[in-house]
Structures are given as structure tokens and as C-alpha cells.
């Protein structure tokens, strides 16, 4: 039980951020990935991919946070800022994600038109004439 081991011996003031970090990083990527590779419906697969990616974004953003810092926009009198670099990377990754989603969804629309279904096992079973 690494979670328990990790939490033992820490003062309660430290506990919240610690728990947060654990929740953030463990639960985020895991269950979401399951939807992608087990779903039979193609739309659900795409939703799963998006959810999976969003949780990776959270991994990045959680690194950038500095306790007591503020958003990285210069304000008079503030010296502690959170790290802007992960934010920049994730801005890029979000846009990449929506681009992939758009292409994936339009493939689904075409698959529906060509095969009449968007369930993976159904079009897998349809035989095509050999070209």
C-alpha cells in the first residue's frame, strides 16, 4: 500500500497537498485510459481519448503550481509566481487534442456512412470483397 506508506508520518498541514497530488496523479491517468481501449463504440473511444489526455494535462499543470504563488501575470508587489512553462505546453497540447478529435470524429461520420454502424465489432465482422 504505497499510498498509506506515503501518507504516514506527515503532519496534517502537509496532508492536503500530498493527498491532492496523489489523487491528481494516480487516479487521473488510469481509469480514463480504460475507456479508450475497451470501448466498442467509436464515439466513446474518442471521448475516452479526450478524457485521458485531459488527465495528462492535469499532471503537467500540477507541476507548475508553487504554493503561495499566483498566476504568471506580472502584478505589482507580487514576487512568487507559478511556473508558466507547463501552462504553455498544455495550451499547445489542448489544441493538438482538439485537432485529433475533429479528425477522429469525421472519420466516424464516414465510417457510419460506409458501414452503417459505429460499433467496432460490427464492422469488423463485415466482409469486404477482395480488391
Amino acid at each position, binding site marked *: 500500500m504505497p499510498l498509506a506508506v506515503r501518507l504516514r508520518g506527515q503532519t496534517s498541514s502537509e496532508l492536503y497537498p500530498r493527498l491532492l497530488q496523489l489523487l491528481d496523479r*494516480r487516479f487521473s491517468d488510469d481509469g480514463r485510459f480504460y*475507456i479508450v481501449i475497451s470501448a466498442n463504440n467509436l464515439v*466513446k473511444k474518442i471521448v475516452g481519448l479526450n478524457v485521458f489526455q485531459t488527465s495528462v494535462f492535469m499532471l503537467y499543470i500540477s507541476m507548475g503550481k508553487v504554493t503561495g504563488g499566483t*498566476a504568471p501575470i506580472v502584478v505589482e508587489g507580487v514576487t512568487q509566481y507559478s511556473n508558466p512553462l507547463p501552462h504553455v505546453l498544455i495550451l499547445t497540447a*489542448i489544441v493538438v487534442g482538439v485537432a485529433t478529435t475533429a479528425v477522429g470524429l*469525421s472519420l466516424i461520420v464516414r465510417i457510419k456512412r460506409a458501414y452503417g454502424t459505429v460499433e467496432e465489432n460490427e464492422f469488423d465482422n463485415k466482409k469486404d470483397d477482395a480488391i
Partner: protein
Amino acid sequence: MAEFIDLVLLAMLALTALWIIFLKDLFAVVMLFGIYSFLSALIFVNLDAVDVAFTEASVGAGISTVLMLGTLALTGRQEKERLSTRSKLLPLFVVTLTGAALIYGTLDMPPFGHPDNPVHQHVAPRYIEESPKEVGLPNMVTSVLASYRGFDTLGETVVVFSAFIGVFSLLGVRRKKKKDLESGLESHRVLQVIAKVIIPLVILFALYVQFHGDFGPGGGFQAGVIAAAAFILYALVFGLPKAFAVVGPKFLQWMAAFGVLLYASVGLYSMYKGGNFLDYNQLAADPIAGQHYGIIIIELGVGFTVFAVMLNIFYAFGSQAERSNVQ
């Protein structure tokens, strides 16, 4: 307190994700995805990533959800019960393995939010301390995005452009013939009146986000998406043919290409001036002014491309839907 809010949000996030796994109604799945996206955006705000939150809300919760709904309209909203005998064990095994690897990886992770973490000690300090002087913008995210890592952002704009190529080659945008039924929510007077009031405001907001990105959260991506949203609303309420009359797909195709070229031309011009690709210092006699010009122009390029691509992708999906309705 902030941690407590995060904890609650994370719990809700986990619940939403679990719910998505078990639901069979795809409409609800997509809606839950929108919720998931908004929840993530809230967490991003709480973790000081305001720009990211803005983008996640407009792109993840906004455009992605709209496109998913558009797809559902064409493919049906119910997931079928699984009939195949394909085992669920393999995916479960792969996911468990991935999860185990991640947990293993967290064991040595630097503590959350500690200012002495490597990420806060190396590379980033220069962005935080020097960028207001070197680039001259208060928003460090914009400085890093547009200047220090401007090449990434060019790549990202090109990714958006590639998505357009993909969607366009797959679906194409069909212009309706005049004799086809007029579409849109013609009979909904209330919607039309409200839309007419809202759309100019949304466009104004988009312009604000576009040009204020240097000082506050925002920039070309968010502005492009918001402006596209205004036109999407117009197309939804008044029908695609009328939207085509305002900005046609062919024009948008040009605009998408133009945005990328505008961005790249800044790089070429700085090469012509003797600097490296995308070296904005060369654009004007004063490096700070040069940075300023460079960032404004490339953000415009990004805005053009994102706006044109997002709207055109919506047109592509929308015209498919109308076609199948007419049939």
C-alpha cells in the same frame, strides 16, 4: 481552503470519468465530457493556470463537445450492448499495468507546490524574472508561448491546419442548393432575437481576448475559438446557407492558409533581417518593440487560422447533418 476545493473537484472529476465508462447513452456521455472539461478548467484556475483554463473551457468543453454532438446527430445516440465475446481482461490488464507504472513513478516525485522543485529552479526562473524585461509583456505565458517557444506555437497552428485538411478531405463542405429546405431554427423568434443581441458582443469579446492576451489571459487560440463560436451560433439559429453567405467555406479555406503564412512570414522576415527564424528582436530597431510587433502579428495569424479552421470544421459537420435530414 484551496486544497479542499481541489479535492472536491478531483472527486467530482473521478466520479464523472467513472460514470462515462458505464453509461450507454452517448448523448449523456458527451454532456458528461463537457462537465469533465469544465471541472478540469476549474482545477486549472485553482492551480494558477488561467490561460490553460480559458483554453480548456473554450476548446475542450466548447468546440469538442459541439463536434461530438454533431457526430452523434449522424451516428445515433445509443451505444449497443456488447455482443462480442472479446475479452475485457486484456484492456483491464493493460490499464492496470499503466496505472501501476504511474504509481511507481509518483514515488520519487518532487513534493507538490514546493518552490525548490527542479521545475521551478531551472529554465523557468528566466521566464519569470527576465521575460517582462526581454519581451516586455506582463503575461509570461504569452511571452513563452509566442516568443521563447514560438516554434512550438507555429507547429501547433500547423496541427490545426492539418486537422482542417483531414476533416475537409473526409467530409468536405457541401453547399446546399436553393430548392432545399431552409434550415435553422426559423420559427424560434426568441432565439433569433437573443442571438442577434449576443453575437456582436461575443465577437467584441473575441477581439478583446485577441488583443489583450499580452496583458491578461487570452490570445489567438482562445480568440479564434470564441469568434468561431459566434458564427456557429449564427449558423445554428439562422441556418447554414445564411452563414455561408456571410463567410463561405472557400473564404475560410483561404483564411486558414493565410494565418499559417502570416505566422511563418514573420519568421522569414526576421531571417531576411539577419536573425534566426522567428527572432522578433530583428523586426524593429528596438528589440522590445520588435518583440511586440512579432507577437501581435503571430497571434493574429494564430487567431485567423483557428477561427477559420474551427468554423469550417463545424460547417463540414453541419452540412453533413442537413444532408442526412433532407434525405
